């Protein structure tokens, strides 16, 4: 009896310790990301008071730094984690919010539906476009975009528009420093339920069957072309705190460097540059 009681108490104590450990860990992750992002934001705002600082200069410095790197990926893959999934705390809040909306009035108006859609997607297309523009500024010729739910592929036109805007905005800032003015090839992977397994079964190297847009220089009307690019990603960046490839084409990432970046809402150019530094340092031995 006493032994059972002792075991019961021991289990309770261990369970409480386990819970506290995980809650503390998640909280410190959130706080660390929050502080890092906001400190950078505040310092940028302060710097913008000075006449010599500008976002364009930041971009030019970024391009300068990248040009000094010994190697840059030829094919960059970006896997986007929905904001709703990156933090356990936000997932719990999201669940509560969804259960609330189910309990409340079901006859919502269109505005509420749009809001719901945005919250369910949890992806800021403008930020994704920024990341693609940075990759383009870094002279990365091929960029693959992926998300497990296939949202990016279904919203590729909207995303294409944002990418176009970002590249035009950055064009004159990077034109002088970049040797190659060719626009990037952007590839979209995946539709929901058609994950890497099914692609493998279909025997496709999925690269051959994906729509690709080539953005032409903004001299005249932009044209979209379907083109093919048969390379495997050199670097896979996962935007979010989910430590998994989440089904990204398993056949194609055998030699790909995998790194994680902060989530969409907190990613900065310096984070992206940091990953390029890490990639430049890595050594491929190919088993030898």
């Amino acid at each position: 009896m006493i032994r059972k009681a002792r075991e019961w108490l021991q289990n309770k104590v261990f369970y409480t310790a386990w819970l506290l450990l995980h809650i503390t860990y998640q909280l410190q992750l959130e706080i660390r990301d929050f502080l890092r992002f906001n400190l950078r934001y505040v310092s940028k705002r302060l710097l913008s008071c000075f006449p010599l600082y500008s976002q364009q200069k930041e971009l030019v410095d970024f391009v300068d730094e990248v040009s000094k790197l010994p190697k840059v990926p030829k094919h960059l893959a970006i896997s986007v984690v929905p904001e709703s999934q990156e933090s356990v705390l936000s997932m719990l809040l999201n669940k509560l919010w969804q259960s609330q909306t189910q309990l409340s009035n079901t006859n919502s108006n269109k505005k509420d539906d749009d809001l719901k859609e945005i919250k369910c997607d949890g992806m800021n297309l403008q930020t994704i476009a920024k990341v693609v523009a940075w990759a383009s500024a870094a002279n990365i010729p091929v960029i693959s975009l992926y998300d497990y739910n296939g949202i990016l592929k279904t919203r590729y036109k909207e995303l294409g528009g944002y990418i176009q805007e970002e590249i035009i905005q950055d064009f004159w800032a990077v034109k002088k420093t970049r040797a190659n003015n060719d626009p990037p090839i952007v590839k979209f992977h995946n539709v929901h339920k058609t994950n890497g397994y099914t692609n493998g079964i279909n025997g496709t190297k999925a690269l051959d069957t994906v729509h690709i847009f080539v953005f032409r220089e903004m001299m005249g009307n932009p044209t979209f072309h379907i083109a093919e690019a048969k390379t495997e990603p050199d670097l896979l960046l996962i935007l979010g705190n989910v430590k998994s490839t989440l089904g990204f084409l398993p056949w194609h990432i055998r030699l790909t460097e995998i790194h994680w970046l902060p989530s969409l809402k907190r990613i900065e150019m310096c984070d992206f540059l940091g990953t390029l530094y890490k990639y430049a340092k890595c050594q491929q031995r190919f088993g030898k």
Partner: protein
Amino acid sequence: MMAASETLLEKLFRKILQQGSIPNHVALILDGNRRYARENNMQTIEGHRKGKNTFKKLVNWNAICGVKEVTVFAFSIQNFNRSTQEVNDLMALFRSTIHEILGNKEIMTNGRVQFIGNWPLFPKDLKPLISKLMVDTRNNTKITVNIAFAYAGRDEITSGVKNLLHGVANKALTLSNVNEDLLDKSLQLYSMSPVDLLIRTGECRLSDFLAWGSSDHAVICFRDEYWPSFTYWGLLECVFYYQANKFRIQQDFQEEEKNYQQSWKFLSMLKKGLWKTVENHDERQRNFGVQ
């Protein structure tokens, strides 16, 4: 399994972690032996020996934590491109390790050992030893240890696909039978459960390891230290990491599972209803004397 020596703090942390879910299948890429040897002014083979010692402890650590399956990337097909001297030294090391395992009563009675990889590429003198180990441990169930030897992920998928193609060519299968599940089960002697946690020391890439098995929902943990320096604490940290990330990853798969179960529930109710209609119709026919 052999009782590994745990310090009090390690035991406490392990007991706390065991309140949450422990990964069922842990995969490890044992990388960094040569770099470890270089940094510690040792010969390359010494680095590999240190790596072997860490591997022996690893299986015990996993058994203590409650992991049911462990897969290690011991030697890839591309490793055959190393210098002849190094390859010969490594083969000699594998030979001695297999002899040690064969002589270890505890492993031989509790652990199931499976070698995964391209069997024709295995050295001829190692094949009898590997066969003996696999046959003698085939019925053990406590823990499964898969050793990836002469292995590459693409090679594994290709050979699985070839097996299915032969089946279709020999009319043992039709094309409609071919699906993910069948391919998954055709890859190895014993089907491996999906990888829950993949650990790699030294680098940040998968190097063609378990491309199929780790694709969907494995938590990936890249460690900075080299394999010989990997410790029990490192494993416990990775398990903690797995628990912290599992919830996020599993969310999507739980949604899929829920939808799948919902569809099946609907279908079985629909079919029940349809059968009832058919049976009712049949009863009415009998009541009116129509057969």
